[in-house]
């Protein structure tokens, strides 16, 4: 099994790509699709595997620089990473790489080198930086025939083949084959403009070894960092003094609050970068007189933390009402049973009872003041938002 290194994708694929399988990252033009192949190179190397990167649309040196931008040190991994250079010959420049495609517009030339690699190297991950570029140079039909053959040989030799492909206006037949039966798995990458959330997403169109989930994930590309699952807004709400601001600060990599005399009068805002997720967190005030502001803050949320003071069950009615004010019905939510350090704090199960909550709503014990339980709460909510399996 080879990990793609893309957060969440490995979970969806039951751990990664099994030996002998092929996968294509199928991107709409204009989105950052080529990073997926690159991150899979790093994922392989990072787990001790051997990797071959076929560079078609830029110089190998530029790829190495990109690794640096992402903060992925490849110097120490160099002896397990080989480049196939099909770019320098195209522009008539010399190449220092181990493998060179002398005639990049001739599919036979690719065939020879790729087949040699497949036969000679121990089971490896072979990543094509741009299948579309090869297709542009060698022809659609010719390239597809070659790919079909490489995939079969790779299966026999236990390699994993990964292709970046940009869906330029090729013939419908070509695009159908690529989305259809040419590869064992197809990951689609596209852009969306849904109301005002502009973003990029990926989803699994096909995978013949894992049950596919129809969910799509928003992502962002960070430098350094690489691909992160992007959650544009998580709401933190709850009654007065429950510990919402404390919770936002405990969870966030960086956060600010608009507080006066210890109470929030406008909002808390925090950003978190954790385990492959990048999320922005919006905390509301708790006092009723700020309810008009709470309404302003809650639009477009993808999930909610409802923070309560576990020693103060008289506020639970207000807490429920806040789900109403924030129009959070239908969104995934987690109850943060805060202030568990205080004497008399209700246990999570007691909170659930007093709240009359359904069994499937998670109640997480937290001491926000000491950052206890905050990441557990985050992971549970994220799991709900991304429909984890």
């Amino acid at each position: 099994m080879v990990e793609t290194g893309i957060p969440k994708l490995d979970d969806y694929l039951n751990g990664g790509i099994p030996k002998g399988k092929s996968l294509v990252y199928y991107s709409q033009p204009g989105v950052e699709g080529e990073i997926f192949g690159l991150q899979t190179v790093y994922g392989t190397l990072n787990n001790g595997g051997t990797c071959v990167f076929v560079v078609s649309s830029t110089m190998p040196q530029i790829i190495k620089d990109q690794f640096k931008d992402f903060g992925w040190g490849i110097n120490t991994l160099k002896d397990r990473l080989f480049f196939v250079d099909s770019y320098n010959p195209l522009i008539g420049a010399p190449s220092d790489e181990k493998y060179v495609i002398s005639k990049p517009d001739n599919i036979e030339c690719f065939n020879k080198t790729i087949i040699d690699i497949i036969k000679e190297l121990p089971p490896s991950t072979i990543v094509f930086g741009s299948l579309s570029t090869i297709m542009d140079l060698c022809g659609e039909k010719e390239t597809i025939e070659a790919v079909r053959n490489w995939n079969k040989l790779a299966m026999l030799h236990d390699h994993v083949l990964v292709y970046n492909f940009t869906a330029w206006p090729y013939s419908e037949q070509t695009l159908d084959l690529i989305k259809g039966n040419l590869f064992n798995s197809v990951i689609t990458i596209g852009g969306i403009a849904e109301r005002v959330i502009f973003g990029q997403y990926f989803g699994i169109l096909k995978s013949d070894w894992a049950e596919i989930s129809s969910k799509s994930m928003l992502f962002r590309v960070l430098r350094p960092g690489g691909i992160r699952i992007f959650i544009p807004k998580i709401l933190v709400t709850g009654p007065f003094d429950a510990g919402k601001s404390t919770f936002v600060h405990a969870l966030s990599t960086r956060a600010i609050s608009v507080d006066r005399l210890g109470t929030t009068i406008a909002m808390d805002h925090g950003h978190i970068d954790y385990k492959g997720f990048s999320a922005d967190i919006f905390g509301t005030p708790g006092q009723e007189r700020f309810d008009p502001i709470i309404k302003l803050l809650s639009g477009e949320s993808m999930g909610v933390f409802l923070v309560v003071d576990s020693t103060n069950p008289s506020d639970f009615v207000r807490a429920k009402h806040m789900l109403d004010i924030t129009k959070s019905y239908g969104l995934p939510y987690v109850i943060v049973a805060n202030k568990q350090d205080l004497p008399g704090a209700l246990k999570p199960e007691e909170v659930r009872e007093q709240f009359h909550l359904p069994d499937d709503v998670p109640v997480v014990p937290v001491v926000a003041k000491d950052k206890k339980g905050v990441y557990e709460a985050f992971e549970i909510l994220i799991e709900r938002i991304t429909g984890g399996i």
Partner: protein
Amino acid sequence: MTGTLDMIDKLLVDLKNVGGVMACAAASRDGLLIRSLMQKEQYVESLAAMSATMLGAAETATIHAEMGIPTRVIVESDIGKLIVEGAGPKALLILLANKDSGLGLILLELDRSSQKLKEILK
């Protein structure tokens, strides 16, 4: 999608080129950043969230005071000015200007930009 973002980028570049403008950004009324031209990228997301809250709070206040819907919020400090202006029902523009710049031309250009952003997001 890229088309829309390119248009917003162009609009922001034009706005930033107006004399006295130091930075500008587009955000949603819910406080999510759409695009920005700012020095400190790290804080832009918080600024977007705060600006949406300011404009929203101003709107709530003026409506209750029977003053109608505010066009914009202008905040002045010793160092500069922060202006938040609505751009249709979904979005708003945030602009930072230096202290000595005259507001006349800036507000004129900001109005035009907000009209354009409203159209782009239709």
